């Protein structure tokens, strides 16, 4: 539960193109780490390399080390499928499986682990996960309906319920609120604050107020120019980043004087 992640000298490639260069960072357990920076600077790419989703894209690869509590995630004998079962992910656009009911969406990850679960145990898991995602009260009467019938915010919380149902060690969130209205955003932010008691959370966001509100640590990514690789410019406690950052570039970005 809630493991620490150490990244050292990580270079991330799309084919021959070096997208992110030289990332060194330690992500603390039981806290929220926010990644901010302009579009195309490699925040999402970096996030996807933590649970080895990056390599799903043809030609994409990674050099360097990502270690989770002593376990090298890119060791030759590490199965990416196992890594993804330990590190859950929530995407920018809510993506519940359209062909499954709300219930089946939540149970999907557990069924993948090929454990035979009794109906009662599955019921219990679905309820616990939906309660964990603050969605239970809204959907308990229509668990057999398709997940795609919910509102955007509800769908995103359903995706969070699906991700936490398998009890991952780490939860990655790739701009989870950018497709949501402010009320749904607030609901997700409250939820993240609750979840950080149990999980290590890493969130990519374009919303700097959001990073300031929810996170304890913040990393700022930037690139020097088009075609240049993105870099982690600064990684510090959120309070410091937003009040007295070490780097000029961070201050410029946060105060809106970038470019």
């Amino acid at each position, binding site marked *: 539960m809630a493991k620490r992640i150490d990244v050292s000298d990580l270079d991330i490639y799309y084919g021959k193109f070096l997208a992110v260069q030289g990332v060194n960072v330690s992500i603390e357990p039981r806290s929220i780490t926010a990644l901010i920076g302009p579009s195309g600077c490699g925040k999402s790419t970096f996030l996807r390399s933590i*649970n080895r*989703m990056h390599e*799903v894209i*043809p030609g994409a690869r990674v050099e360097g080390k990502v270690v989770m509590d002593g376990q090298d995630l890119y060791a030759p004998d590490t199965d990416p*499928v*196992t890594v*993804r*079962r*330990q590190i*859950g*992910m929530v*995407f920018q*656009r809510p*993506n*519940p*499986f*359209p*062909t*499954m*009911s709300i219930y089946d969406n939540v149970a*999907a*990850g557990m069924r*993948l*682990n090929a454990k035979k679960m009794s109906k009662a145990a599955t019921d219990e898991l679905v309820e616990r996960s939906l309660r964990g995602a603050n969605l239970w009260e809204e959907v308990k009467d229509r668990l057999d*309906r*398709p997940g*795609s*019938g919910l509102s955007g915010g509800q769908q995103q919380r359903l*995706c969070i319920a*699906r*991700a936490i149902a*398998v009890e991952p060690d780490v939860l990655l969130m790739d701009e989870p609120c950018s497709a949501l209205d402010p009320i749904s955003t607030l609901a997700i932010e409250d939820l993240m604050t609750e979840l950080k008691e149990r999980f290590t959370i890493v969130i990519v966001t374009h919303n700097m107020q959001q990073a300031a509100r929810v996170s304890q640590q913040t990393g700022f990514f930037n690139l020097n120019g088009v075609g240049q690789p993105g870099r982690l410019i600064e990684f510090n406690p959120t309070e410091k980043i937003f009040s007295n950052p070490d780097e000029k570039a961070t201050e410029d970005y946060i105060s809106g004087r970038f470019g």
Partner: protein
Amino acid sequence: MTVTSPPQEPTAPPPVRRPGDRIFSLSAKGAGILILVILAGVTLFLLAESFPALTAPAEEIPGEGGLASYVWPLIFGTLLSAAIALLVATPLAVGIALFITHYAPRRLAQVLGYVVDLLAAIPSIVYGFWGIAWLAPRLVPFYRWLEENLGFIPLFAGPVSPTGRTMLTIGLVLAVMILPIVSAISREVFSQVPTLHTEAALALGATRWEMIKMAVIPYGKSGIIGGAMLGLGRALGETMAVAIILSGSAAGITFALISSANPQTIAANIALQFPESTGIDVNTLIASGLVLFVITLLVNMLARWIVNRRADFSGAN
């Protein structure tokens, strides 16, 4: 602010009619109506022409047993051959489509895609010749094996046809014939599964096969069914290949797939009998055509019902 005069009724400006819009709308409407007219015309023709056979006394129908006993073995043969074709072709086609969309390297996938499309363009008479000249003799040893080892199942009861021109052969030829259309349509829907859904499955820790089971096949299910129905339509109506392979030996209703006694299919029977038929015989053949028409209609409605039954879960919303 005081209101001194009753508020004016807001008058909408008359909609602007642009000639391009009108021409397009009329021609589209015309095309839509045309297809209905053609369908109605075909139905009326079939009904009118088969009417004499429907009302004729039983002994005037070929075989002298009445229309029902004439058509029934043909219906049986049609459905049986099409069912074999569908059972063999659909899993294979889904496998081909999955291989092309999710497993094959891009180059190979492109080549395979072309080959599959090419198969669809081969005229059915060629399939018929291939079936009778090449496939049928090579299947005979296999049929002998089936008879010896599985002969206790009525499907594989002997005696084995020495020529290999059997119901199972025609089922297999039809399967090859409909394979391209089913796999082409399955490939199309599989390639349209949103990355969003495949990544959702992968991020949950699904292997590639689990991802396909979770996201790809459920999303493409209506497409697979649609493709299978198109294939079934072709298998039901296939004339030349069946006529060549199953010529002559109309044997009534039998489930024996590998003996030389086989039921004919409706379409092949029409093709074989029509040139030598006159009078009421022609009407009988047309009546059997009407039956084929109704069967395809029912099959299509069934497919539509299957697809719509879980429309909420289709992924289209």
